[in-house]
């Protein structure tokens, strides 16, 4: 391994080691033993988490968790299945807030009429997360709490300025999407907290959004994904801009500087190009088996440009 690292660089070796480790374990596609509990209320679920602390994991759709458990990259002594808790799956609009229950499946978001009319950006994402069968099971809350840096929903909630509702022993609290992601696979959620709802401000009349994802094939995580939501005021001046990036760093990233470059300016090819450049310049994407850092960075620029244009086009259609 030392010899290898001299030739290939440490990161490549780390990836190789990761694969070899998986092969070592590959006689077992069976997870380690665990206890399964299926509470029927949030209160019970939270107290189970409190009782077992770090030993417990929440099972929502399980489309990331179960494969990881099978590869034994992750294990839990207690699996708390929240699928039997009622009223965690819904899409509704109340007082200018669009609310999505954490247990709502990707496919349900993709089929939602409310989303189609108000937030077509959600349909963009719901049609590219994983593959069609996984989307029948996987949940938006599970994906967000898993916090894969290349996950699609992370970029979306950042672009939409969403708030995430978490319920814990002390009750409910709201976390701004911009503060939710801490690091790779790490969020602000405490070990005894459960993500229950995603709250998105209803978009203004003159607004539009889009999500574009670069992926090698269906089912992959994004090489790069860009979400953008913009709102225009009088004379085509941009009054609101949200840009979220997937795959561009150790966690989903809010392209704050690019957003600032757009707000207060008239939307034009020039302003879009400039924002795209800023968005790429301020990222430091990782290199991995899917792509090099340089390629990712170049694609952040291209996809920010295309996404902003798509958002504008969509606004024009409405």
């Amino acid at each position, binding site marked *: 391994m030392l010899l290898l690292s001299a030739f290939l660089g440490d990161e490549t070796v780390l990836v190789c080691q990761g694969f070899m480790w998986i092969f070592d374990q590959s006689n077992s596609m*069976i997870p380690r*033993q665990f206890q399964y509990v299926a509470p*029927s209320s949030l209160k019970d679920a939270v107290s189970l988490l409190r009782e077992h602390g770090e030993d417990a994991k929440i099972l929502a759709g399980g*489309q990331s968790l179960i494969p990881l458990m099978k590869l034994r990259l992750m294990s839990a002594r207690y699996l708390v299945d929240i699928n039997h808790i009622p009223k965690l799956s819904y899409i509704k609009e109340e007082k200018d807030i669009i609310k999505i229950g954490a247990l709502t499946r990707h496919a349900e978001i993709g089929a939602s009429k409310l989303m189609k009319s108000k937030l077509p950006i959600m349909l963009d994402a719901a049609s590219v997360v994983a593959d*069609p*069968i996984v989307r029948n*099971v996987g949940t938006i809350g599970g994906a967000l709490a898993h916090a894969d840096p290349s996950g699609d929903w992370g970029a979306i909630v950042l672009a939409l300025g969403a708030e995430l509702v978490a319920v814990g022993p002390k009750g409910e609290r709201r976390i701004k999407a911009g503060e939710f992601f801490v690091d790779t696979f790490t969020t602000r959620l405490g070990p005894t907290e459960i993500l229950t709802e995603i709250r998105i401000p209803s978009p203004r009349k003159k607004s539009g959004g889009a999500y574009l994802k670069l992926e090698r094939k269906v089912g992959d995580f994004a090489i790069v994904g860009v979400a953008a939501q913009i709102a225009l005021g009088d004379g085509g001046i941009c009054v609101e801009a949200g840009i979220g990036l997937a795959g561009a760093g150790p966690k989903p990233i809010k392209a704050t500087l690019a957003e600032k470059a757009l707000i207060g300016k008239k939307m034009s090819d020039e302003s879009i190009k400039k924002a795209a450049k800023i968005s790429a310049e301020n990222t430091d994407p990782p290199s991995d088996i899917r792509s090099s850092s340089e390629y990712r960075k170049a694609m952040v620029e291209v996809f920010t440009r295309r996404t902003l244009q798509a958002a504008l086009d969509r606004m024009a259609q409405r």
Partner: protein
Amino acid sequence: MNRRKTPRSRAPKGRSRAALGPRKVGPENFKHMIRVTVNGVEREATVEPRLLLVHFIRDVLRLTGTHIGCDTSNCGACTLLLNGRAVKSCAIFAVQADGGEVLTIEGLAKDGKLNPIQEAFWDNHGLQCGFCTPGMIMTAYDFLRKNSNPSEFEIRRAISGNLCRCTGYQNIVKAVAAAAESMRSAKVTVTARRR
């Protein structure tokens, strides 16, 4: 099938039984008794929580029509219907199907007559080695109920979570389109007869 009387479970301290989920069996390995309706027949078994649904179907119930391809929820060979929607049964635990309904490839044919989708796969040579076929058909079954008149593009998207290593996609797409057509015309005939 394990039908023995179940011993009382040992609930952890300070936890009501209700919060632990239904019918927990025995302290050893924390097994659960599950009851699943598979292809219309109620089946019962005592399983470890870590038993995957696909292993329950294949190894416990001996319904080996559902295949295991990649084991990492990429290939879709293990696709079956759980409570009416297509799922990859290698990424779901059997305990999660407790109280639910499962439909596998074995449950499609009725009275010795193949389902129109199976028929269409046969007619259009929609399979080469046949390994991906049960998954493809179950995916198509779910998809055609939601979209009875799909375009070729929609079919290709619908089966994008199912991999065919023979790369026999052309005929699979043809088969799904043919199945859609025959199911539509069958529906028309039935309605006409009723009138």
